[in-house]
């Protein structure tokens, strides 16, 4: 009897496997849609250069999978979830797009992934920061690849407290995003034996940070953490430089800072700033080789988002090649089963909630004397291991993890 059962199950299993192998690439084209902010605030961190990274991945892969052509369509999301929702809907319903890459503003990403879930297509999120994308907004149809706010707001404080930055002052953008990061930072600092000696909330957005920075400076804290993003962060850093915060011995910890931001600020202003990054172009020969090629095409060094777009697209295409199918679930499963070892990440893996976990790095912005060139901006201080960097599954609210 048990024998029969075993035989039957294996027969069913092999039948299923044959079924899986028969799956093929729909309409013999793999179509990738690149949706990102091409003209607004987030242009530099993803934008047109992200499209170049995507094109490089397709070109390096050979432009074809199993004889099926790889095509790219692109659109500017204008940072509007309406535009994202209607564009992605049109892509998947009319234009037969199989995968959407880029995805920057969190509202855009959540809107796009909802549509992708309905249509059962795949999204590879690289630009977005919000960790809610693989938490309360997780879907079986997307993967969050390069980094998230959890990793950023956990990594920097942990590393700094361990290195002796015991007292903290937090500057928080006064809305949900800032509040969430403030909470994360407080928790991590206290868990590691540090102390929060004060915090202040500033309106979002704020052009003039003088009064906030002066209060932070007067607090005498070892570290001033910036729980904000984008223009708020760069404005705060500029103001801090004007008041000589780093020169007077305090450390500034930026939570959401990109290479493009630091490049725009310059080492004179941003020197000494500590931040967490998922990747840096000048880490080893592999990253340098790819970045050189990227720079030839675009004239700029890649951010972690650009590198993530390249890496995730190659992973995606490899998964299609391995399974012979561009069906979203088949590809996602294959991607989850394959560890990621390339210039972007070593031993990276994709979890069931869609989070790609990999080592993160604590970096410090070089002083003008240390920096040897326009793009020689970071020195990597320490590595934050993958297991510590991202939200553990045990704390997850994702429906794919909790099963609710």
């Amino acid at each position, binding site marked *: 009897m048990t024998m029969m059962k075993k035989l039957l199950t294996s027969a069913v299993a092999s039948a299923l496997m044959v079924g899986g192998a028969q799956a093929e690439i729909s309409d013999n084209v793999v179509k990738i849609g690149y949706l990102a902010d*091409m*003209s607004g605030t987030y*242009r530099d961190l993803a934008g*047109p250069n992200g499209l170049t990274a995507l094109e490089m991945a397709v070109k390096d892969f050979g432009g074809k999978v199993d004889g099926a052509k790889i095509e790219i*369509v*692109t*659109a*500017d*999301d*204008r*940072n*509007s*979830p*309406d*535009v994202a*929702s*209607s*564009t992605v*809907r*049109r892509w998947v*319903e*009319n234009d037969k797009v199989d995968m959407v890459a880029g995805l920057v*503003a*969190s*509202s855009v990403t*959540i*809107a796009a992934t*909802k549509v992708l879930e309905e249509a059962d297509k795949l999204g590879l999120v690289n630009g977005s920061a*919000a960790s*809610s994308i693989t938490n309360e*907004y997780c879907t079986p149809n997307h993967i969050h690849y390069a980094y998230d706010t959890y990793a950023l707001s956990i990594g920097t404080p942990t590393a700094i407290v361990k290195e002796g930055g015991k007292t903290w002052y937090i500057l928080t953008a*006064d*809305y*949900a*995003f800032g509040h969430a990061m403030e909470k994360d930072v407080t928790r991590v600092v206290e868990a590691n034996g540090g102390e929060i000696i004060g915090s202040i909330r500033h*309106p*979002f957005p704020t052009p003039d940070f003088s009064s906030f920075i002066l209060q932070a400076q007067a607090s005498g804290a070892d570290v001033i953490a910036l729980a904000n993003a984008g223009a708020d962060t760069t404005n705060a850093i500029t103001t801090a430089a004007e008041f000589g915060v780093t020169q007077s011995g305090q450390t500034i910890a930026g939570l959401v800072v990109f290479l493009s931001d630091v490049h725009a600020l310059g080492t004179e202003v941003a020197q000494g700033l500590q931040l967490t990054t998922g990747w840096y172009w000048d880490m080893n020969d592999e990253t340098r080789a790819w970045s050189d090629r990227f720079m030839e095409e675009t004239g700029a060094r890649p951010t972690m988002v650009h590198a993530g777009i390249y890496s995730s697209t190659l992973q995606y295409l490899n998964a299609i090649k391995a399974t012979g199918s561009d069906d979203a679930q088949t590809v996602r499963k294959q991607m989850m089963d394959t560890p990621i070892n390339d210039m972007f990440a070593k031993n990276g893996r994709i979890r069931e909630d869609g989070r790609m976990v990999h080592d993160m790095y604590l970096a410090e912005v070089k002083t003008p004397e240390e920096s040897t060139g326009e793009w020689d901006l970071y020195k990597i201080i320490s590595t934050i291991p993958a297991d510590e960097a991202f939200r553990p599954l045990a704390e997850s609210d994702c429906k794919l993890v909790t099963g609710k």
Partner: protein
Amino acid sequence: MSQIDIQSDIQQTILKQQKIDSRRKWILNGVLLVLLLLAPFVMYPVFLMKILCFALFAVAFNLLFGFTGLLSFGHAAFLATGGYTTGYLLSNFSGLTTEMGVIAGTLMATVLGLGFALLSIRRQGIYFAMVTLALAQLVFFFFVQASFTGGEDGMHGVPRGELFGLINLEDNLNLYYVVLTVFLGCYLLVQRIVSSPYGHVLKAIKQNEPRAISLGYKVDRYKILAFVMSAALAGLAGSMKSVVFELASLNDAHWHMSGEVILMTLIGGMGTLLGPVLGATLVVNIEYQLGQGPLRDWVDPILGGIFVITVLAFRSGIVGEVQKFVRKNMG
């Protein structure tokens, strides 16, 4: 020829002219209606619905700006209030049918509109614009802070549901015709309002407020009513938008949106009925088509350029200029 003869002659010519005008209008409207009914078979329905929602928003704005002469720089607040209210109710109370959510959103925007109007109506020109902008910013900050809106992430997964519990709105075509019906209803309503005696008083206020006051009209009341109706229609546009896209976001509350609706109205032709509709169609299309093409980095400068050219060269907008041309050459 006696004087009476001349007068009746003139009257007849005017009547004739009006007849020709109204016949032209009917033909034009008929053609447009047929186009709108057939459009979803040629174009993507969700995109068309987006145009209709923004067109309604622009029509609502134009009722205040084009016909009453009040430049509100805070209309995004009503769009967003309608959208968030409808989104919140439909997401959290599954017993509500879609139209109830939309009506509630519209009512909420109406109440907010009344509040705005009472606070701002005594000022004119730039001061009025600034007061409405300031109030709209307050509303924006409320939506940023309030937990039910999802802040920057936006409010997602608003169910489209069923109209009257009968018609399934998940189907794009069904929803399109519902949105089209609502839009046409509102368009006709605005047409009726501006051609009514009340509408003529609004125009009188726009042309010369002191004269309207000296004629004995309680100008403030007329303006408040116009403001509230405009806010209600803007709220309705926002409510429908949140149903169409199944989301509501901060973009709708941002002052950019208040600016965009001014752009739509000016390009199309303020103070005309079709102008804002055409303007909205153009702006949404430009944003979309250019966003896909090689000029995608240039969407904002191009829109800005069009705005400058419109203001400098043809102030009455596309529809306004066409009307002038037709009157001059084909009358």
